């Protein structure tokens, strides 16, 4: 071992922190190297100083005061709830109220939802341009082709869950379809060759067949709106003039 290696290991050698083999090699080097021997002596002195590094004598009064302070703090902390305890205590009595409030809110929301759903079911959704004869309840004979807007809930076989679009959207759709119906009616009214046909709303909705069974003379056109509940059926005589180009976009 050379001096540099020994010098790097001397702090541990002085504290007996080296294995026996390494310590033996250092001891052999120290026998032949006065400089390293002096350095080792310095480390031994330093270690001796550290071992003698005793704290001052603390009086019994110091310890008694310290213990008193500890007990006082323990008592204070036991009487004063901790931060987490405070939060828990704040939530504990209110948790029941929160649960009850949440349940009531859910019940209230469900009630409103079902009530509005029932009211929507009672509203007449179908829009029919045909005018019913007040006397016998039969459809009134009209010079116009018959248009029916089939949106009756009774004739719809879809489950109830599929019939729940938002009410505003439903109303908008109805308004749009009413506009379409009226525009088609205007177009049809402008065609003087149109032959009157007779139909009932149920016929036009359920079967979609030509009115009066006269399929040869009647042209049937169905327009499905975005709303699956609303379908526009247009019946017109075959020999009638084709609709104006403006009506094709309906």
């Amino acid at each position, binding site marked *: 071992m050379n001096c540099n290696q020994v010098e790097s290991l001397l*702090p541990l050698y002085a504290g007996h922190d080296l294995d026996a083999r390494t310590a033996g090699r250092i001891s052999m080097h120290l026998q032949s190297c006065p400089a390293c021997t002096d350095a080792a002596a310095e480390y031994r002195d330093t270690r001796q*100083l550290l071992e*003698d*590094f*005793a704290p001052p004598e603390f009086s019994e009064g110091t310890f008694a005061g310290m*213990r008193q*302070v*500890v007990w006082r*703090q323990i008592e204070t902390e036991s009487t004063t709830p901790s931060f987490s305890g405070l939060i828990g205590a704040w939530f504990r009595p209110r948790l029941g109220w929160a649960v009850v409030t949440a349940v009531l809110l859910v019940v209230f929301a469900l009630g409103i939802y079902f009530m509005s759903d029932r009211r929507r079911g009672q509203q007449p959704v179908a829009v029919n341009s045909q005018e019913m004869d007040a006397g016998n309840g039969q459809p009134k004979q009209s010079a116009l082709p018959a248009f029916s807007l089939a949106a009756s809930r009774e004739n719809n076989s879809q489950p109830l869950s599929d019939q729940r679009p938002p009410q505003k959207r439903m109303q908008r759709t109805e308004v749009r379809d009413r506009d379409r119906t009226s525009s088609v009616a205007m177009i049809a009214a402008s065609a003087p060759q149109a032959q009157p046909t007779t139909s009932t709303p149920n016929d036009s909705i359920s079967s979609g067949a030509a009115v009066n069974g006269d399929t040869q003379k009647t042209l049937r056109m169905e327009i499905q709106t975005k709303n699956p509940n609303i379908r526009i059926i247009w019946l017109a005589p075959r020999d009638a003039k084709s609709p104006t180009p403006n009506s094709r976009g309906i």
Partner: protein
Amino acid sequence: MALALEIQLQGNVLARNQTPLALLIERAAAGETAAFEQIMIQSQQRVMAMSWRLLGNEADARDACQEVFLRVYKHLRHFKQDRDFFAWLYRITVNVCRDTLKKRHLQSQTRSIDADPNDSVLEIPAEQADAEETLLQAQRRELISRAIAMLPFKERASIILRDVEGHSTEEVARILKSSSTTVRSQISSARRKIRDYCRRHQTMQESQ
């Protein structure tokens, strides 16, 4: 009869004072305040000395000691009986002292290496017969205290536990939750720094 009763009472007191630490810990963990008081009495000197060595003054050491026992009281029920209680206590002490140093920024206020060690030598009454020896001892203590105060905290804790408290390297590693190799390296570095500091101080004294 009275004498016999007195002897028996003294024996009971003696037996109570010599209660094994494990039993005291068990009773204190169950909430017995007298048992915890006994634990404090048995360990206060060690905790106070260790705190003083790490922090360098009595006021901080007392505060640290209070905090150590508060933490011990809080976590005593989680202490496993198969572990070394004093190693656990030393670890808490080291942690508390480290927190104290961080909190009060004592590390930045530690005395400079170049400062004169004779600045704050304790005043020793000249009337004492061994006044000279006491003065010398106080100077040595002051010297080592300054040398230790300049060390980084980990090296400081390692060297105090190893060379001052007399624990083995493995015990120090266990207390500090570190490896033996790391502790050995810290101890070696600390000894070298302290040696250099003492040598510089000696050179300054000789030049004066």
